[in-house]
């Protein structure tokens, strides 16, 4: 579980969070959305101690995040940054994926197997010996994701981690994430602007100017479509289309996902 209590944080010029509270339940797959500059990336940096709050508390698995135990906390949390370039430490793709494992003292034999597994799983075969900086945008993101998945941390933060993947790659990634979420062992926080990706989450949190505007199941949040549209957010395709079709009594109910919409059309 992650508990954020009365958090206050600002960069030199202005406060991003002023008395901010949010809890992530253990095993939950949470999608975090919100306008540009609403504080999503700042929050994820605070959770791994890359930025330090001026006030309030962060508790992860019952341990309070402090300057002394930031290393312990970081081992519990895997993160993929919004810009993968900020993440790379290894000279080659394989080294980079191995880095987090080395840091966690994973035995060498085990490490080799894990690196190999995630290179294959993330479709990076053939890129092992290349510099992560000499890859295409999507290849960089795949490398960053592979590194975070390989360490298998209890908490995983994905900050727009799939934003540059091709449609097939994005689908595969969402399947991996859904799979990871099924056994309820890992807490996943996924930041995204793609609304079709959030419908599978257990919980959807909408940030607005450093505050939680809405929080609940995706279904409950998208039912309040007017409030979302008022702050410039959109609705997933299935919600948009089913709303219109329902109002014209062509289908019997509103739908959240494309699968539900297809079912409704078949009824």
């Amino acid at each position: 579980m992650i508990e954020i209590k009365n958090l206050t944080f600002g960069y030199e010029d202005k406060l991003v969070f002023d008395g901010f509270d949010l809890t992530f339940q253990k095993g939950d797959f949470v999608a975090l959305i919100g306008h540009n500059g609403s504080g999503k990336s700042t929050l994820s940096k605070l959770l791994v101690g890359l930025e330090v709050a001026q006030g309030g508390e962060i508790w992860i698995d019952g341990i309070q995040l402090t300057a002394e135990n930031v290393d312990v906390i970081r081992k519990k949390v895997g993160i993929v940054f919004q810009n993968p370039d900020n993440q790379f430490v290894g000279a080659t793709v394989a080294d980079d994926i191995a880095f987090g494992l080395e840091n966690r003292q994973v035995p060498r034999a085990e490490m080799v197997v894990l690196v190999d597994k995630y290179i294959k799983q993330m479709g990076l075969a053939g890129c092992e010996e290349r510099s992560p900086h000499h890859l295409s945008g999507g290849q960089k993101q795949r490398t960053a994701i592979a590194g975070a998945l390989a360490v298998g941390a209890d908490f995983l933060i994905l900050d727009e981690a799939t934003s540059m993947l091709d449609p097939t790659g994005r689908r595969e990634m969402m399947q991996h994430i859904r799979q990871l979420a099924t056994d309820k062992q890992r807490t996943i926080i996924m930041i995204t602007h793609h609304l079709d990706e959030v419908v599978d989450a257990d919980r959807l949190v909408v940030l607005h100017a450093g505050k939680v505007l809405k929080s609940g199941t995706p279904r409950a949040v998208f039912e309040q479509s007017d409030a979302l549209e008022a702050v410039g957010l959109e609705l997933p395709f299935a919600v948009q289309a089913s709303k219109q079709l329902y109002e014209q009594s062509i289908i019997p109910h509103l739908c959240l996902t494309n699968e539900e919409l297809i079912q409704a059309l078949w009824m």
Partner: protein
Amino acid sequence: MDVKCEHVSYTYHLKTPMEQRVLHDINFSLSQRSFTCIIGHTGSGKSTLMEHLNGLLLPTVGKVTVPGGTILAGVKTSVKTIKKIRQQVGLVFQFPEHQLFETTVLGDIMFGPKNAGKSQAEAEAAARMAAKIVGIDEALFEKSPFDLSGGQMRRVAIAGVLAMDPEVLILDEPTVGLDPKGRKALLKVLVALQKEGKALLVVTHDMDLVATHAHHVLVMCQGKKLLEGTPAYVFSQHELIAQAGLYLPTAAAVYTQAFGRDGALPLTVADFIKEVKAKRPLIKEEGKFQKGKVQEACLK
């Protein structure tokens, strides 16, 4: 023709052990007042190709013609020509961080017009206008462009190119990281620019954007041009689209799954509603929803 690539091939790190050939004999051309989308799988060569169009990368083989000049493989292009090309062909990089370098946001957006010989006042006016168009708050003007959120950085990078007012605008995944409101605003600007007579080239993985905005689509696959045509034509080539690691726009994908591949595919929400309504007699009979009717109709 405004932009033309003839037999363009490119190899990274030529004549080194890291040598990698990534573009193979690319041919295409586009004219003024056009909106072209480039789509293709991860690593298919889209960014590499775009970087050829403003002289950032020089073709290993082939010829690139753009407003401002011609670049020919193996022939040294003069610094003057490259400079002229860069003023007429604006490129927004896939990673905005690669583009930002000034100490303030406003200074960064002003760089292009100043470099093109505009006065301080003219450059500032152009920069303020561009910032407003993409939704950059004045409160951010004096900040370092590196102390911004991801979406704010993207906006600054786009504003910098808009302020230059080039003839050809190339945007490499410009909607990545933008919130829905920012995406909408950007697309509105692009449409307006295209109507003004500019040529737009947008690299994207957003098939809904392609469906709703492109006039012309170029599909890249493993460094080659796989397919080219209108969105309706390109998205009707199911096998090739799948081969290229792509997918149908959401409306078309849902429609196909519900009703099978039958007739013209809806590409937008509005088309989708229209097509579904056309099927309505099948779906709803005498006010009662009937299970399986449509499925049966599709199987026939």
